[in-house]
């Protein structure tokens, strides 16, 4: 861990979805972490946390991905991901995946113990009280299931969003209900997933918000895709973008105006 007074070394685990679909979320995360006094690096040896394999029953490949990524993350004081789902995978599931290999399992536990979801890291570890950002609007906040139930992320993003000038944050009527993403579930059982995200979209619309925020790109792409399909004007963004004041890019699922 970092020496008192020194800047902690933080590895940004970008997540495959932010890397491929929305790199501005990664940049926003870097900006926030640097503002919180961290020295941020992006280790090359990362691709994905392995959930697509793990949740499809392909334990061998999931374990192999974890095994190959662990050395890249070990040298840091902390590993931070702009996603409750990926942080939860590293924190809760990598040690379980590698428990048959005593040496790797030790390393997996060591990485797990220093891995955090972005907003909870900013508030709970860095002690960040407020952000220097403005957004004129009303946001509905969606709690992603993994962040909420695996990592206890609930108040942290709300606390920081509460300090964004001009922004009002509203809760959904059913905040604990899954949006229907579930990784490959969304394409394997499209009808069921479609009903779930449709109910979620109704809940979002009912808040009267003009902006939807969440901390996980999987959920966000699902909800944005549904809102846009049904012609909703609600803009969708990752919470990091608003906290970092990076709202110049088009929202998720929208092009340049």
């Amino acid at each position, binding site marked *: 861990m970092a020496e008192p007074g020194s800047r902690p070394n933080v590895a940004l685990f*970008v997540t*495959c979805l932010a*890397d491929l*679909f929305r*790199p501005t979320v*990664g*940049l926003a995360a870097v900006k926030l972490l640097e503002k919180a006094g961290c*020295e941020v*690096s*992006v*280790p*090359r*040896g*990362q*691709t994905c946390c*392995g959930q697509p*394999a793990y*949740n*499809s*029953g*392909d*334990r061998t*490949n999931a374990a*192999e*991905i974890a095994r*190959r990524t662990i050395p*890249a993350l070990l*040298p*840091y004081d902390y590993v931070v991901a702009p996603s409750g789902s990926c942080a939860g995978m590293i924190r809760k599931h990598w040690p379980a995946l590698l428990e048959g290999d005593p040496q790797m399992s030790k390393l997996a536990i060591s990485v797990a113990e220093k891995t955090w979801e972005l907003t909870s890291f900013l508030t709970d570890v860095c002690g960040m009280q407020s952000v220097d950002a403005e957004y004129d609007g009303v946001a509905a906040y969606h709690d992603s*299931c*993994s962040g909420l*139930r695996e990592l206890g992320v609930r108040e942290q993003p709300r606390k920081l969003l509460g300090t964004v000038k001009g922004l009002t944050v509203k809760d959904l009527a059913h905040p604990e*209900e*899954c949006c*229907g*993403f*579930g*990784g490959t*579930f*969304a*394409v*394997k*059982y*499209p*009808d*069921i*997933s*479609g009903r*779930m*995200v449709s109910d979620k979209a109704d809940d979002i619309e009912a808040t009267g918000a003009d902006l939807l925020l969440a901390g996980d790109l999987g959920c966000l792409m699902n909800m*944005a*895709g*549904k809102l*846009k*399909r049904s012609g909703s004007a609600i803009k969708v963004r990752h919470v990091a973008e608003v906290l970092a004041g990076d709202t110049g890019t088009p929202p*998720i*699922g*929208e*092009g*340049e105006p």
Partner: protein
Amino acid sequence: MSVHEPTSHNFPENARKALGNKTLQRGLASAKVGFRIRRSEAAARLPEFETLRDESRDIKNHTLAHIDLYLEEFEKRVVERGGHVHWAADAAEARETVLTICRAAGAKTVTKGKSMISEEMGLNAFLEENGIEPVETDLGEYIIQLRGETPSHIIAPAFHVLKEEVIETFREKHTHLNPDRVIEEARELQDEARQVLRERFLGADVGITGANFLIAETGSTVIVTNEGNGDLTQTLPRVHIVLASLEKIVPTLEDASTILRLLARSATGQEYSSYTTFSTGPRRGEDLDGPHEFHVVLLDNGRTDLIGTEMQDVLRCIRCGACMNHCPVYGAIGGHAYGWVYPGPIGAVLSPSLIGVEEAHHLPAASTFCGRCEAVCPMRIPLPKLMRHLREREFERGIPPATVRWGLAAWAWLARRPTIYHLAMRLPIRLMALLGGRKGRFRSLPLAGGWTSQRDLPAPQGPTFQAMWNARGGRREASK
């Protein structure tokens, strides 16, 4: 047995039909919310609720580790009190046992309390085939029996039936009653069912109930009900048969009391159900009522095979239904789509174990792993973990289609090689961003039909983060 042939292999089609069933959807939307609110309020009112969950988990874990011992103890106590214990390895053996007891009693009619084990055994159809009329006495079970349906929820079997449909069914089936009678309110429906069933209770030769617990130290069986129908079922006829699966056993009365504090709270949000009935042996000489014969049929049906495996935790289940009440998938499609006796998350882990991974492989796959079932399970069963384990078993057996397996293998090959991965992703992502164009999303895209059938696919922004980070010369290594 036709009613109980599993249709779990047909889950996607079952689900599609359920999603299109407007009556079912109306019922699901209102009922699930009520269950959730009542459970959460009941849990909040009991300061030691979380501690009780730990204690109850530990009680069951201990019991499962010594299940042979406790079952033998239970049998000994039942026999001491003049009852009989029948061990059944599978559903067929259990059905035969019940039939033999019924025949010996010269039974024409049997009344039945709610029992999921009876559903698992396919008992009603079997009794009918053998000239014995089963009469369900739990209101929900009675309604679906009249309608020729199976339960869609383990504690609310007629969860899927609307009040208007019950009125219709009663008018159609209760032809001996005045056709001009008024039945509009739930109360009036209950009264009518009570009136019709009262005659059946008095005329029954055998009463069959399930069991929520078997208590080793006393040889007692326990049922919880809200209608009192279980008591009439087991005390009025000459013969009482208890159907129970092996894992219902707990060592002591004290243990049953601990878990009972969780059961109704998790199920309906009640502190206790209206009736908690303990049965210990047949009527004794000085007793004023009670059956003359007391039989317990202990069904295994694959459960002992789970002990000592990764799936053992599922045997802690007390059938409260909290997992399905909180499941977003169950909430979308209801219970029948699961295609066998046990729906929802508990069905997703139990059914593949009891009827085979080949038949039930969709059930553990059809979950987003949102984790709400585990969060509310009073016995702390790690349901998502068990579903994932079953997915691993399916994967090992090669059940997922070749396209999925190859796609996954190709992706995993790349994901294990960061340098190649980062280069390989750049071009396709750029291309996708270009195709997404001004709109920033796709209405349809080759190979993404599952996604775009329901929602648009947001397009990538263009450069990958890794490429952007390279371009700006960002830090790649921890500073010393």
